[in-house]
């Protein structure tokens, strides 16, 4: 052997040998470390799936935008085309644009052969429609014949609803048409829209013959332009002043695209919160698990220190192991996310306006993996940096080396790492939040929850120590004592379990409350069929039909269309142009369909002021109006303010004397503005009526008779609406259940990490007890006592926190009422508790497999 004087000069170890050493050293613990690091996999999966799918949809929108929008520019008018608007369109044509029009309105379709009626969304289109994309039909090729005569094409659901077939006649208003086929693919419309408003396409040449678009009827008048050259935005900008004067609204393809993609981004940001929450939960799991893993490495680190390893070399070895396993965990999550992404079109494809072509989105995958790896490492660093302080002396003696542990705030590296974790949480929240306030609210909520859970864990330990009684059975005493003695797992399990319970239950409560809002709509109100667009001279006739079939009106109300002209003497143009004012544009610009009556209806409650029925306006006075409370807020009007309305050309001045809360969920005839009768009795009006018919065939008979006599009168069967809503809410319930199960699944690896953290100690202890004479049953009961207490406290603490979290989210973010779903929350808490006990007992089963000798040799 060479003499010591011939030792070669030392040189620093290159990274490669260290990484090789790191890889070899990780041999027996790789799987464990991978298990701990894969706590973040589900979070990565959620983020990759959501962001990739959003990317797919955005890309599809861009690729199909022209077909989606219908043209390079879409022009819209409120009340039909005028010579002024037509001449502006002619200017576009003069610049080389091809223009085609579409008029859309609701109407009853009546099939004489089957005597069936259905409400349809009629689309009267020009010959060049569609300018982009193709409409396919069954039989094929029938779209080309649409303008050849009085032909119509129907949505399949409308064909079924009318029980009609190709060749049948269908009446629209006062005109009959031939059904030449059904629609197969129509660019730009989500499939689900057809369920609520099935479409009927006809040629615009015959629209006037139907006599459907008369005073008071609602229609949408659009013109689509395909430009031969030039930028649509520039072309519109050059004519903007004239467009505004003519009240011709123009939306370019770029504006439409950005509206749609903005909605998609908003949706993915919201759903991405699920992924963020899953990642954070995963981070907690990583911290617990890596802590356990680090404890097992102390001996090896001490040996390495004896053999000459510096702090940097030690940290390189173990951080590189964490990086590799973190990468693998993130990769597993990404692969899972890609798989989910491919399933999503099947689940929600028919509520999207485009056909989505699904393919991996590298950016979303990369970002998901990067975030996952970052969070895993940030949380893993906390226990890892403890390895810096392992003394080589521990190779000589296993016990503590005698130097007192520094508090974390006195140890700069630990301060830095804790700051890193805090900043990572804030950074994660910022990737999805709308603004700084939301970011800090989210981060503050997380920090607050963790603090409460840590305090709960300390309280449990404290209480366990104080509550322990000598008279209790030994197995219970041992289990309870495990909660507070040195090396206990109380904090890590309560934190992991409680945090998991908090997040899972909050998610579930928010989703179920939102869904409850949707399904609480009361369709059984006082009537089940609505008629609207009843002209004034048709009222008596309809009364006879209703009476003739021995039905009763639940309500019949006049409807007057109007717009806001001015508020407190300031015109709408003035108010819209003043950027210092805070009135909402929608409240000022929209068309109101208002009514007049002397009584408050059953779906309203006066919030402020007095109902005009109590103090009618004296003759010659300013008539009163009652506003729905949200509209009043949007208009920024208070009691005593005056609003002048443009009622089809005539100005009517009113004073606001009350505001109402309206129960919009009662599906009845509700209104934003209700006038004192004297204000509108003389105005042109139509009527709407709500009638109760005992069953479906009575509804059908009523609808049929009305539409036969008065083809312009539209009607809606509320039971059909109810069924459609039920179908939508069933889908939403399925989605919620999937999310709930996914959320619970997130908790599993995290809990496993937390419980596994002290598995080795538990096993050794259990084996020692076995050696000393404890039976399998006794050891199981000891473990059960401990895990049951941990499970109960952790899940209860999380559940209580979740009520607060859900209430805050619903109140301030979704602006919805909160109803605590106790049964569901307790069920989730119970499930998590069972999970904890199961994982604990599962982890401890090695006690029964190992022989005492093997375990003692290991000490």
């Amino acid at each position: 052997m060479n003499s010591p004087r011939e030792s070669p000069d030392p040189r620093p170890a290159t990274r490669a040998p260290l990484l090789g050493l790191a890889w070899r050293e990780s041999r027996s613990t790789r799987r464990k470390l991978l298990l701990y690091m894969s706590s973040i996999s589900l979070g990565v999966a959620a983020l990759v799936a959501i962001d990739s799918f959003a990317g797919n949809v955005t890309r599809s929108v861009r690729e199909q935008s022209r077909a989606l929008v219908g043209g390079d520019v879409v022009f819209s008018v409120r009340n039909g085309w005028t010579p002024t608007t037509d001449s502006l369109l002619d200017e576009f044509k003069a610049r080389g644009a091809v223009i085609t029009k579409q008029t859309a309105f609701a109407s009853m379709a009546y099939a004489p052969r089957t005597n069936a009626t259905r409400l349809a969304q009629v689309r009267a289109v020009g010959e060049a429609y569609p300018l982009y994309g193709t409409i396919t039909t069954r039989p094929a090729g029938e779209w080309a014949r649409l303008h050849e005569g009085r032909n119509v094409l129907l949505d399949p659901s409308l064909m079924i609803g009318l029980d009609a077939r190709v060749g049948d006649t269908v009446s629209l208003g006062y005109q009959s048409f031939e059904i030449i086929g059904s629609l197969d693919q129509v660019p730009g419309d989500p499939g689900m829209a057809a369920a609520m408003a099935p479409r009927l396409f006809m040629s615009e040449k015959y629209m006037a013959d139907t006599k459907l678009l008369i005073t008071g009827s609602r229609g949408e008048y659009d013109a689509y332009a395909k430009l031969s050259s030039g930028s649509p935005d520039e072309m519109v900008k050059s004519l903007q002043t004239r467009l505004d004067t003519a009240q011709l609204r123009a939306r370019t393809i770029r504006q439409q695209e950005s509206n749609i993609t903005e909605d998609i981004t908003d949706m993915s940001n919201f759903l991405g919160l699920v992924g963020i929450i899953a990642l954070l939960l995963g981070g907690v799991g990583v911290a617990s698990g890596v802590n356990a893993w680090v404890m097992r490495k102390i001996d090896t680190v001490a040996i390495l220190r004896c053999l000459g390893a510096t702090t940097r070399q030690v940290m390189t070895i173990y951080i590189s192991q964490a990086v590799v396993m973190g990468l693998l965990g993130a990769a597993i999550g990404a692969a899972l996310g890609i798989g989910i992404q491919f399933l999503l079109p099947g689940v929600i494809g028919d509520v999207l306006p485009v056909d989505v072509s699904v393919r991996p989105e590298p950016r979303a995958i990369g970002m998901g993996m990067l975030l996952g790896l970052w969070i895993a490492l940030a949380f893993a660093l906390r226990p890892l940096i403890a390895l810096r302080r392992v003394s080589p002396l521990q190779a000589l003696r296993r016990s503590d080396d005698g130097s007192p542990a520094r508090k974390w705030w006195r140890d700069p590296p630990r301060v830095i790492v804790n700051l890193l974790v805090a900043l990572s949480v804030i950074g994660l929240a910022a990737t999805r939040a709308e603004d700084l306030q939301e970011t800090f609210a989210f981060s503050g909520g997380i920090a607050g929850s963790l603090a409460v859970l840590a305090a709960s864990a300390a309280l449990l330990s404290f209480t366990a120590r104080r509550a322990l009684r000598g008279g209790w059975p030994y197995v219970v005493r041992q289990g309870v004592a495990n909660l507070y003695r040195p090396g206990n797992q109380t904090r890590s399990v309560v934190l992991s379990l409680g945090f998991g319970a908090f997040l899972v239950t909050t998610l579930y409560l928010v989703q179920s409350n939102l869904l409850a809002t949707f399904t609480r709509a009361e369709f059984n109100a006082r009537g089940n069929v609505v008629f609207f667009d009843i002209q004034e001279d048709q009222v008596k006739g309809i009364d006879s039909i209703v009476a003739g079939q021995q039905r009763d009106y639940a309500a019949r109300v006049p409807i007057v269309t109007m717009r806001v002209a001015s508020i407190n003497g300031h015109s709408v143009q003035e108010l819209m142009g003043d950027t210092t004012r805070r009135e909402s544009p929608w409240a000022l610009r929209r068309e109101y369909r208002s009514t007049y009556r002397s009584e408050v209806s059953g779906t309203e409650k006066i919030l402020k002021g007095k109902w005009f029925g109590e103090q009618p306006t004296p003759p010659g006075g300013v008539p009163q109006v009652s506003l729905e409370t949200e509209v009043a807020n949007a208009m920024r009007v208070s009691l005593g303010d005056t609003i002048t309305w443009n009622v089809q050309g005539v100005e009517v001045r009113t004073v606001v004397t009350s505001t109402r809360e309206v129960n919009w969920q009662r599906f009845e005839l509700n209104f934003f503005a209700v006038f004192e009768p004297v204000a509108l009795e003389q105005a042109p009006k139509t009527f709407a009526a709500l009638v109760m018919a005992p069953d479906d065939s009575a509804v059908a008979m009523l609808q049929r008779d009305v539409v036969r006599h008065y083809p312009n009168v539209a009607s809606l069967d509320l039971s059909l609406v109810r069924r459609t809503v039920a179908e939508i809410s069933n889908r939403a319930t399925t989605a919620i259940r999937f999310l709930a199960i996914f959320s619970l699944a997130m908790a599993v690896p995290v809990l496993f990490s937390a419980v596994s953290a002290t598995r080795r100690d538990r096993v050794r202890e259990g084996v020692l007890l076995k050696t000393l004479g404890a039976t399998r049953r006794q050891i199981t009961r000891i473990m059960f006592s401990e895990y049951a207490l941990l499970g109960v406290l952790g899940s209860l603490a999380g559940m209580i926190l979740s009520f607060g979290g859900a209430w805050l989210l619903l109140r301030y973010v979704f602006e919805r009422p909160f109803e605590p779903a106790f049964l569901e929350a307790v069920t989730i808490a119970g499930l998590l508790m069972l999970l904890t006990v199961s994982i604990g007992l599962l982890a401890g089963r090695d006690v029964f497999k190992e022989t005492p000798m093997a375990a003692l040799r290991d000490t």
Partner: protein
Amino acid sequence: MLVAQGLTKEFDSGSHHLTVLRDVSFTIPQGTFVAIVGPSGSGKTTLLGLLAGLDTPTRGRVLLDDADLTAMTEDERAKLRGQKVGFVFQSFQLIPTLNALENVQVPLELRGDSGASHRATELLQRVGLGDRLDHLPSQLSGGEQQRVAIARAFSNRPGILFADEPTGNLDGATGTRIVELLEELNRESGTTIVLVTHDLTLARRAQRLIRLADGLVVEDTNGSGVGGRGSRETATQPAGALGE
């Protein structure tokens, strides 16, 4: 050369103040085989820790080839250990996830030595384990593990080797073989060997014996032998202050 000057080590344990080593001083020339003996609690392991730079004294200093260990940072001491110090522990302290060859390579890899594998193979052959290179510690007997540990201790050609009760977990015959191996390596390489033991029979094989009791050096033969070979005697003074 290893010099201990006025080494004192004190601990605070709860409300008690304990002095484990009191003003220990000696010099160990290069190439010497020294045994440090004493009963349980005499401070042997504490002294070993200080001499090897694993710990720092409350007062006094340790000079290893004129380098003052007590004035160095932990990382500086680690680097020095990697260059000049070897260790053999009572419980072998092999890294359980590395095989015999890899365990012996560790000090060389930490120094960035590119010939680590070749050197490690050589050493294992020297200690008679040339055919067990790829065996994990769990697949080796106690004596074989200790031989791997010795090979590792010599891998960086240390100037000094510290052995803490190297035969404590071995039976008599195996232990004897281990010590004989240490002696051979000491003669071949000129490495100073500092052996801590409570076994006087083992200790008598050394050239010099330093006896500790109650944190003080009570005997230092400084080259002359002590007692005779034969029965296995252990130092059995009553346990004193905290030591091991």
